[in-house]
């Protein structure tokens, strides 16, 4: 059954298991490193520099636009370590993948310490995904035989005159490792946010593609430049990536500001006395959870969130507020006018056209789809249901359970006529999960 399959990551609680798996990998790597023959002193020096840079990279994590956290410098250094072969023109390192993983985990743990001291949360599953990804790169480059029983590491000698082949092989190794990282993170988000896995993976890959290209290139650059320059290459060749990181940080920053502005806009109706306290924020949170459950992509979910926040903005043009701000109770013609006024205000920005389209149809009953063949956006149908639920339940803490039951009954009366049954199912799933969390806590 489709439903069972898409629920699998969250039912297995994969985001809890991921750190456990990577701790096991790290422990195995440390054991392997101890068991392996003693390393020359020069190798220790190289490993120490890598561990420090990885730790620094972990401290300087960035938040991607869209809210995912990542540590580009740490990952690039990790890949470079995994693919290090000659450091200086006449010195070859002798460590294997076990030592690579052990060094990376030391660096990553050290990098997490400042955050732990500041008591800011460290996402263990992201950290685990990064470590596993470096482990994959190290295994691929150092131990997987690709040609006549030789791994890429030893093949480098045959490619001395065609070094670009080396470069391409390294980019490919990093690419695979990056995909493993995306795969792990997607599994964790699917499990945590109750989203279909496939959707999470697509979003993860799409969001990480740009940075991923920069990462794979940087790891390769460092590994290649270590031959002529020695270990100095590590900090020096991270410079382009630092620039990239800076640019992405700026981008994410303005995204965040944009979100704050939309939330401020959403509070206009509240301050104007048109809607109840936090109504737009509650509808937005509920809508996004429903959208996620129905497999919306990040981009669509963002539009949905903005539309849900702004869904009552059309009331600003009303002369007198509706009692209690509950648009659900207003006459259908009024609901429609508010929706159209809101869409008009939002369209004036010239940049939120998707949101305006969602807003314009938010009051239309579901039967239009079947009777008139209209194409109502999924986001509009979601907002209609979420808004109705919030209007019916309200913010009352008392008698919440009974109000909840009454609200669901009332919505069921409009099933297929006012409301999209598929969306109502999503509402019930989301609310059940919330109840489970509240019950457990």
């Amino acid at each position, binding site marked *: 059954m489709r439903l069972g399959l898409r629920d699998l990551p969250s039912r297995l609680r994969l985001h809890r298991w991921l750190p456990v798996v990577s701790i096991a990998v790290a422990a195995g790597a440390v054991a392997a490193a101890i068991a392996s023959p003693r390393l020359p002193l020069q190798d220790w020096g190289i490993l120490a520099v890598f561990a420090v840079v990885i730790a620094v990279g972990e401290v300087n994590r960035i938040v991607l636009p869209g809210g995912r956290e990542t540590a580009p410098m740490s990952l690039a250094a990790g890949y470079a370590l995994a693919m290090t072969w000659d450091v200086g023109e006449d010195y070859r390192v002798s460590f294997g993948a076990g030592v690579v993983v052990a060094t990376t985990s030391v660096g990553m743990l050290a990098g997490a310490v400042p955050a732990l001291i500041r008591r800011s949360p460290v996402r263990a599953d992201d950290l685990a995904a990064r470590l596993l990804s470096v482990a994959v790169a190290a295994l691929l480059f150092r131990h997987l035989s690709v040609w006549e029983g030789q791994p890429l590491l030893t093949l480098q000698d045959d490619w001395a005159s065609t070094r670009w082949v080396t470069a391409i092989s390294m*980019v490919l190794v990093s690419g695979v490792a990056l995909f493993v990282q995306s795969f792990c993170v997607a599994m964790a988000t699917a499990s945590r946010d109750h989203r279909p896995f496939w959707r999470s993976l697509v979003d993860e890959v799409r969001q990480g593609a740009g940075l991923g290209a920069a990462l794979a290139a940087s790891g390769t650059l460092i590994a290649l*430049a270590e031959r002529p320059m020695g270990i100095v290459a590590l900090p020096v060749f991270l410079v382009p990536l630092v620039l990239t990181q800076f640019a992405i940080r700026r981008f994410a920053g303005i995204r965040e500001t944009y979100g704050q502005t939309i939330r401020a806009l959403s509070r206009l109706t509240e301050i104007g006395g048109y809607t109840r306290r936090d109504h737009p924020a509650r509808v937005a949170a509920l809508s996004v959870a429903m959208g996620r459950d129905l497999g919306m992509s990040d981009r669509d979910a963002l539009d949905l969130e903005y539309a849900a926040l702004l869904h009552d903005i059309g009331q600003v043009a009303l002369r007198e507020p509706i009692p209690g701000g509950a648009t659900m109770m207003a006459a259908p013609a009024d609901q429609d006018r508010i929706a159209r006024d809101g869409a008009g205000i939002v369209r004036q920005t010239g940049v939120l056209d998707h949101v305006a389209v969602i807003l314009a149809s938010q009051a239309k009953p579901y039967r239009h789809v079947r009777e008139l063949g209209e194409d109502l956006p999924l986001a509009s149908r979601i907002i209609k249901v979420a808004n109705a639920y919030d209007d019916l339940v309200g913010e009352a803490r008392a008698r919440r359970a009974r109000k909840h039951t009454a609200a669901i009954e009332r919505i069921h009366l409009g099933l297929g006529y006012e409301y999209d049954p598929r969306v109502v199912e999503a509402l019930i799933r989301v609310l059940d999960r919330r109840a489970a969390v509240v019950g457990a806590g």
Partner: protein
Amino acid sequence: MLVLGLLSSVVRERDVGSNITFSFLSIIIISSAVLIGPVGSALVGAISMAFDRGGRSAVARLFNASMAGLQGAVGGLVYLAVGGANLAQVHGAGVLIMRVGLPLMVADVVQMLINALLLAGIVRLSSGVPPRRFLVQMITNSGVAYIGYGVIGFLFLILWVPADVGPFSAILILAPLFVARWAFVQYGEEQRAHERTLSALVTAVETKDPNAAGHSARIARLAEWMAEPLSMGTQEVQALRYAAMLHDVGKIGVPTRVLRRPRPLSLVDLEALTRHSSLGVKVVRDIEFLSGCLDGIRHHHERWDGLGYPDGLAGDEIPLISRVIAVADAFDALTTDRAERPALTPTQALKQIEQRRGRQFDPHVVAALATVVDRHERPLTTATEEELEQMRGYLDHDDPIAWEHVWTAAPRSRPVVPRPEPATAGPQRHGGDQNGDETPRIPDESAVAEQVRAP
């Protein structure tokens, strides 16, 4: 190299919205100066630039091409002159940095100077801008970028020759830069989107009070002009502009019937109206980058003599931003057509404001307004007959004359005496910490129910 140069001139994009420009061609020119010497580098520069797309005139194209050629040639010569080594013969990190990196940076700086000098010359010829000022501006603007080009060029060269990767190194080096450029472009777009959304916020509020349409945008421009004679810093001007744009958003919390009700207004109505400045803070306080504007919005109806609202601050206690907005606000209101009078000319309006200098307005700010009136043409805001009919009886709370009439005409009303609230009084207060719900003082509580008659 030539191929790379051509490619880079094709992907060039000057304006990414945030004063940050990447010129991949500059990286290519500096690298080829080292790799293939002065002659080759000159050719790469000139030919790439000649094929630059973009609808420039033939003369401009010729100028650009010869400038790029000259940059390449001189860069190559300087590199050799300061002892730059042949890349294939040096080994080891230290030697690479000293014998390649340093000479390369010298050549890079010389290239930047050539670029700046030539541009300053051509700008002087074509538009008469003093070359020295232009030079300083060029170097402060693009100096950091050129150092970046030098560093990236150095990395590129190491990868090409000592690491033996060859032309493929271009892809590896440029990939992170392309991603960075992409992110900067996104940043610029998002910033424009944000700006437009903010102004939509203002428009949304103005739909509630059609008689004030366009007021916020006009104030923002006026306030920006006034910042110049007041010699405010860039950061402060930015805060001033946003505060001016958003100073009346609190009107959203004023009932529409009050905003549109014809005079006479009851004191209850007036009180509701005066609440807009503190409500405005409530709307925008969660937008982090506006944190510098909150006090400016809250106090834009304070008076120099301490008789304003909501907190009765006086003199320097009032944030400068608020004092500027107060003056700009009044000036714009006076130069707008109203039912009871046509718009005043800028000189008349200035006179009205000067009469209130030292009482309602900060004298320095009024002086700044005088400079602005002198310096900038500013159209009056006119209304058609029909619109005038519509706004009959409308009270513009920003119009000092109308407001005084309403205020002094109120029976038994006397000047508002601020009653300092011990918990919140003081100029250092932060508007965002207060919830903005409090009621501003009104002249006399016993007069609340009475009607205030308009003249």
